[in-house]
């Protein structure tokens, strides 16, 4: 795809982000006015920053790809990604802010005073961070290979290196205004082309997105075969294709079904539920639980709440995040739907994650307008994984440097690492996900993110919810619950990524584990806490008062 505007747009976004991080806001905020300098971050800005950090490659690219493939069933992904903030708002936001904790391990220490539990929480933060970083790098590789034709591994490697170096050298720190800028950039990058797409669709006479007799190519298309597969042609005959073969279709031809790509068609695409019946229902509930409850366990989201001056500001911030994130998630859905009409060839190749990147060019045409829109979308995608991976890497490097390196160099508990520690930690934290991303190219971006949510929902959600709302929680109970629920979810992730392919119920239980791991974690946590009632922290009443009493009481 020859688009002269894409590379400059990506470079501009990257440079602007790094430059604002390094210089821009530093100079802008140098002042002699105390009122200006000591103004806290308003909930609106903070919410935009959370949105900027949260809306990752999975949201920007992955959701549209899933909708293109599976239709209405996967709408639960965007709904859950947004609704997770509702759970956060209801159960966690304000008390967590009042606890004064900066990270999840900090919360364990405040509430249960256990250094072992702290270490366990650290391990889970690192694992979730890595698991969440992998799809970001995957998205980066995909974006670069789609828009420039570079091989997949080069993109993932390049972006991994850029982000790691940037975090290690102290650029892209969690600067609120940079991340807020990223949110608006991402929203613009999807919203502006979306308007053109809708106008174009209207002008085309509103072609059907789920025609009962299958999709048709909107124009003459050539598809290069990459893997061996069997095509089922519209007339019922089938044909085997080999890598390197070129298939040409002319406008109006029906899109054949490919054996290696699992996709829904016709009414199946439009209606919820699928042929697998109960298993499909279970997977959907699992997904809902994972995304609703997993958001509160994401390390890079929680550190942002520290910026709020008090508990009620934290609540207001969450409310604004809900609105901003909800607004954003309307757009990828639209791309997925229109992708059915304009980029059906992606259903042949299976690279549906690229739909957002290709759609503007395919629909609006290869004129200047189409190229500009495509460049805008590519820049937005770049912003998406730059901001989320920087935020994630900063959080992971933060806990590694404070909880792992500080202890390794034997400086005693509770003592924080130095700048050098942080750099070492950032390198370590960056290398692992890059290595993983190079090996899991075949998984859908959103599915890997879904697994990260499942682990977070089965480890930190019970810990936070019970820690905040139940006085009886003990350190032993918390550790047991995190190990049981989180450990089971981690096991499911490992089997999905490196294990043998499964089928039937085991496949469903492993691919979408939240519906059994979350209740397991809660049950174990409650049961073990009841059994170890002697270990309830002595100051539990003081801690609870502190978590729940509004600051205005000045207790």
């Amino acid at each position, binding site marked *: 795809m020859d688009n002269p505007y894409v590379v400059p747009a990506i470079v501009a976004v990257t440079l602007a982000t790094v430059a604002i991080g390094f210089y821009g806001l530093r100079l802008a*905020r140098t002042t002699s006015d*105390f009122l200006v*300098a000591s103004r806290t971050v308003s909930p609106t800005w903070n919410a935009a920053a959370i949105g900027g950090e949260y809306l990752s490659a999975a949201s920007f690219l992955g959701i549209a790809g899933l909708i293109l493939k599976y239709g209405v069933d996967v709408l639960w992904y965007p709904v859950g990604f947004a609704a997770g903030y509702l759970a956060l708002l209801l159960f966690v936001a304000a008390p967590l802010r009042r606890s004064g904790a900066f990270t999840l391990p*900090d919360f364990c220490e405040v509430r249960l005073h256990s250094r072992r539990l702290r270490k366990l929480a650290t391990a889970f933060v690192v694992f979730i961070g890595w698991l969440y970083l992998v799809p970001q790098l995957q998205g980066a590789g995909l974006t670069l290979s789609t828009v420039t034709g570079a091989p997949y591994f080069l993109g993932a490697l390049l972006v991994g290196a850029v982000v790691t170096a940037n975090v290690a050298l102290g650029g892209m720190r969690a600067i609120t205004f940079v991340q807020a800028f990223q949110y608006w950039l991402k929203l613009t990058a999807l919203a502006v082309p979306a308007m053109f797409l809708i106008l174009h669709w209207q002008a085309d006479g509103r072609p059907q997105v789920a025609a009962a007799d299958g999709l048709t190519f909107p124009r003459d298309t050539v598809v290069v075969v990459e893997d061996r597969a069997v095509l089922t042609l519209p007339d019922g005959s089938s044909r085997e294709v080999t890598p390197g073969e070129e298939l040409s279709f002319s406008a109006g031809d029906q899109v054949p079904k490919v054996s290696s790509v699992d996709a829904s068609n016709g009414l199946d695409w439009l209606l919820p539920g699928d042929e697998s019946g109960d298993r499909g229902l279970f997977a959907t509930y699992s997904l809902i639980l994972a995304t609703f409850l997993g958001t509160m366990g994401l390390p890079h989201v929680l550190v942002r709440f520290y910026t709020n001056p008090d508990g009620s500001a934290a609540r207001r911030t969450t409310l604004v995040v809900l609105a901003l994130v909800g607004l954003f998630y309307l757009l990828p859905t639209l791309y997925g739907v229109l992708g059915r009409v304009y980029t059906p060839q992606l259903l042949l190749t299976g690279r549906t994650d690229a739909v957002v990147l290709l759609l503007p060019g395919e629909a609006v045409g290869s004129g200047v307008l189409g190229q500009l829109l495509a460049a805008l979308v590519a820049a937005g995608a770049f912003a998406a994984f730059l901001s989320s991976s920087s935020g994630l890497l900063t959080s992971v490097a933060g806990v590694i440097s404070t909880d792992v390196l500080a202890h390794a160099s034997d400086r005693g508990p509770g003592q924080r690492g130095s700048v050098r520690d*942080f750099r070492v930690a950032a390198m370590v934290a960056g290398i692992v996900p890059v290595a993983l991303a190079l090996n899991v190219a075949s998984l859908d971006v959103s599915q890997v993110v879904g697994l990260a949510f499942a682990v977070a929902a089965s480890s930190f959600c019970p810990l936070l919810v019970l820690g905040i709302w139940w006085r009886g929680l003990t350190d032993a109970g918390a550790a047991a619950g995190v190990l049981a629920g989180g450990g089971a979810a981690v*096991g499911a992730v490992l089997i999905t990524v490196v294990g043998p392919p499964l089928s039937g119920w085991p496949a469903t239980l492993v691919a979408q584990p939240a519906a059994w791991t979350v209740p397991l974690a809660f049950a174990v946590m409650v049961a073990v806490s009841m059994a170890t009632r002697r270990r309830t922290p002595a100051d539990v009443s003081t801690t609870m008062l502190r978590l729940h009493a509004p600051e205005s009481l000045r207790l």
Partner: protein
Amino acid sequence: MLALITALTAAVWAVYRLRARRSIATATQRATYDVLHTAGLAADPLRTGLSRTSAAKAIRHLRGLVGAQGLALTDPDEILALDGRGNHHSAQVLAAARRAIAQNRSTVLGSAELPCDRVDCPVRGAVVAPLTGPDGTVPGALVAIADDEPAPGLVQATLETARWAGAQLALAELDSSREQLARAEVRALRAQISPHFVYNALSAIASFVRTDPERARELILEFAEFTRYSFRAHGEFTTLAEELRSIDRYLTIERARFGDRLQVRLQIAPEVLPVGLPFLCLQPLVENAVRHGLSRKPGVGMVSIEARDAGAECHITVEDDGVGMDPAVLVAGVGDAASDNGDDSGQHVGLSNVDERLRSVFGDQFGLVVETGLGAGTRVSMRVPKFHPAVRARL
């Protein structure tokens, strides 16, 4: 599959633990380890002082050390905790403990002194040992209950355990007196800032009373708010935002005195404003910068305050372009805070006080870093962790 992985992990962990145990080779070593381990478990609660909660936590481990049928821990008023047998003898035990505490003498009770109307009562004797706390005070007593006339071994063990527990309580006392000392230092610091500043501020305000009454009124209000913050009675910690607000008031008053000679430059990352830090640990640095950067120097002086977000920490620097000082003098002054070399002494005390308080709260690597030289200005920087279990910003 999943169960298999879990089982494997559990097995590996169990083997690892067993091997770790086995590395303690001989029976003697094993016994020493057990005693030290139990003592360590009992020490944690005792180090928080003698109370019902701490006694309840420690008593089980203490009984393990003494090896008696029952063990009670009392203070002069009541039995704080009792583990094992002998619950129905608590009145007699308490009376014996009171006598022991009053006389600071250990006693051995035989079955004659522990009459009981229960046929199956197993209690035949008891050893009462007072706990000797700091300065020879006796905060409580340890009572070991035996099902036989107390053997010499039990008496020995009880006495030694009581002595050890007394030492732990003395350490608890030490901890709390260290905290009291830190609080006293904050109070000392409050008392220290005021005299210079109060005098200067009031004279500066006085000069406006006739020429600009409105401004004088505002300044007095600022001054009132400033003193309210500095003399506030509660809380050892505050947030960076509040500390900056107080510094703003301070600088407003100083500007009234110095006019345009005092330039201030601020660069505060809004993300770190909620960071909790010891009360009044930034303001002395700013006061020093103003005094240093301006008072003994002609022309304009610039004070810059910077707070940066650095991952899990916040980095704060206060810088002036004033006369600076000789590092050797500073080191001597910090080392010996009491040395009285004229006008500078207050400053050294201020810096070393902040330094000590930062170290005592956050740990030794969080002390102040001072970069200075004669004629080169001064730059004082500190690192504050965003979260520390000891910081209770609002309590």
